């Protein structure tokens, strides 16, 4: 019956309750949307770094991680020795051979980073195949087909089908050089990759570097990038001493910090926004308690304990919080879903920004992340409880004699 009483009390001043409720719903829903968009931004940033280049985990000799020493190479089957079908969180494995060299065409040459990859495997780790603006991704069929970035293509004034020469140092001390045919051009928005990166078949790279059957690293993709550090910790003990798996947080420490800071900033943003909402709730319930002074006096005269009175008012605020939460979460989820499916393209207004090793794309796009729901949800209930506590106390401390006298 206390619940019934609390629920009916809520709707005594329908307009006031609805106003407070809508403020709570709006703050919860907008917060959820905003956090979803923030998460989307960070996801974009992280994805730009991992899905365009690193992967979530990279296995290589420690020496290679540290110095990119071209002689710190591994057997190209190395991954299959340490990673089994039971490591289900790993959903993509791509062996790579890396070579720094020059690409030239006629009298222009450009320094580039060439990754020798197995195209079908690399597609599981990076997603340059989705960033093509011309031609096709290299395939096994063309043994010297290359994928280059838009910036590089512009500088060299080349397009798909053109041939160019790659020159680099080979492992035997000689100078390796050979022809590449441009099969495709990608554009990621990140100038470092667009100006520098070249993807070529692994076999071709091994031949030019005179490193048959060898690779420098194995890039891996995980189902959940946030579990990268944990997975690396789990896998590393299996590896020989001179081989190590680094996660994206090790490779991009700034990105790790930015994302860790987000958890803190999320709390701060939520707190600030809810402070205002909390004051609204406080005001509503103070008014409602004051208006009901005599009624509380009568309840007390009947033998209702002060704590029960307090509980009644708290129940009312929590009920309001619960209703606001249910509606707010739904609205927030719907708006987030819209922003996830459709989003807003800002490409016409701003250009991509490179930050903390990743690229923030010129778009508003949301992702679903549990924390973006339970943090605002939990805080809203907490705020309702805190904002309810003062008026509840006020009601519980009323002197029944005075309260009953009030008309």
């Amino acid at each position, binding site marked *: *019956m206390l619940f019934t009483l609390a629920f009916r009390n809520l709707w005594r001043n329908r307009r006031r309750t609805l106003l407070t409720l809508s403020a709570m719903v709006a703050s919860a829903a907008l917060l959820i949307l905003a956090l979803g968009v923030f998460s989307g931004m960070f996801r974009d940033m992280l994805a730009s770094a991992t899905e365009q280049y690193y992967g979530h985990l990279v296995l290589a000799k420690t020496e290679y991680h540290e110095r990119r020493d071209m002689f710190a190479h591994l057997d190209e089957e190395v991954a299959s020795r340490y990673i089994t079908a039971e490591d289900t969180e790993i959903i993509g494995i791509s062996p790579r051979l890396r070579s720094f060299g020059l690409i030239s065409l006629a009298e222009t040459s450009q320094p580039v980073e060439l990754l020798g990859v197995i195209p079908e495997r690399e597609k599981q780790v990076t997603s340059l195949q989705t960033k093509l603006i011309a031609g096709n991704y290299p395939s096994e069929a063309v043994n010297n087909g290359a994928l280059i970035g838009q910036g590089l293509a512009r500088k060299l004034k080349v397009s798909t089908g053109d041939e160019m020469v790659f020159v680099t140092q080979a492992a035997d001390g000689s100078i390796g050089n050979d022809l590449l045919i441009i099969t495709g051009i990608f554009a990621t928005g990140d100038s470092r990759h667009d100006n520098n990166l070249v993807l070529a078949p692994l076999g071709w790279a091994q031949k030019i570097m005179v490193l048959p059957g060898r690779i420098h690293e194995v890039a891996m993709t995980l189902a959940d990038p946030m579990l990268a550090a944990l997975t690396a910790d789990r896998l590393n003990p299996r590896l020989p001493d001179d081989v190590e798996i680094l996660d994206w947080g090790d490779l991009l420490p700034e990105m790790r910090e930015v994302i860790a800071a987000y958890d803190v900033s999320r709390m701060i943003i939520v707190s600030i926004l809810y402070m205002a909402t909390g004051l609204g709730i406080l005001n509503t319930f103070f008014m409602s308690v004051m208006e009901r002074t005599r009624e509380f006096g*009568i*309840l*007390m005269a009947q*033998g209702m304990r*002060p704590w*029960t009175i307090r509980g009644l008012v708290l129940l009312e605020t929590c009920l309001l919080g619960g209703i606001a939460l249910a509606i707010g979460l739904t609205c927030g989820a719907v708006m987030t879903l819209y922003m996830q499916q459709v989003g807003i393209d800002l490409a016409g207004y701003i250009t991509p920004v490179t930050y903390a090793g990743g690229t923030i794309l010129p778009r508003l796009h949301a992702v679903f992340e549990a924390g973006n729901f339970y943090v605002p949800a939990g805080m809203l209930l907490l705020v309702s409880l805190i904002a309810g506590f003062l008026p509840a106390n006020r009601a519980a401390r009323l002197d029944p004699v005075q309260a009953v006298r009030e008309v």
Partner: protein
Amino acid sequence: MSLIELQDVSKIYRLGSQEIPALTGVSLTFEAGEFAVLAGPSGSGKTTALNLIGCLDHPTSGHVIVNGLDLGTASKKALADFRLQNIGFIFQSYNLIPVLTAAENAEFTLMLQKVPKPERRAKVRKLFVDLGIDGLENRRPADLSGGQQQRVAIARAMAADPHVILADEPTANLDSHTAEELLELMRRLNREQATTFIFSSHDDRVIAQARRVIHLQDGCLADDLTISK
């Protein structure tokens, strides 16, 4: 042992530096089954006396002993629990919780006593019949007349089987006909069910119905008459 004993009870209200003596040195006893009225003009201390008897307030000095217990220094919670088990209160008007139906209002004390729902329902249904308000169970207080509201308040007070029902000017807001009916009802409950009633009034016609009239004047006991009928 008397049901209620007031021993040299005084109550002084403080308004800033001002001291308002509402009750001065009042000694009274009430026995179970009484039908007594506290009479006196407005401001004579009737409400104060009822609040003290009902353990809603502590006296400034003296003792109030109800059912053998002196709750002089008891906590608010202990007082509330004591009232719940022993005292029924009826006020002048607006006694009921507006968002609850008549039956829910009457059930309220039983709910606080944690009486199971079916038992609550049955008891209240019977009381409503006894008090002549059956059929009004699902009305909200706003849809009841003043007399009906007071009857629901009596039902609520009686539901918990208290030792005494205290009614502070229960008829003051009713027309004379309805007031008489309500008083008649209270008398009947007193006679048939031995419910102890102590009520206050400044209306001579109401006072004339009581079996014991306690006159208060400026917070002092002026007269205590038991009328044998």
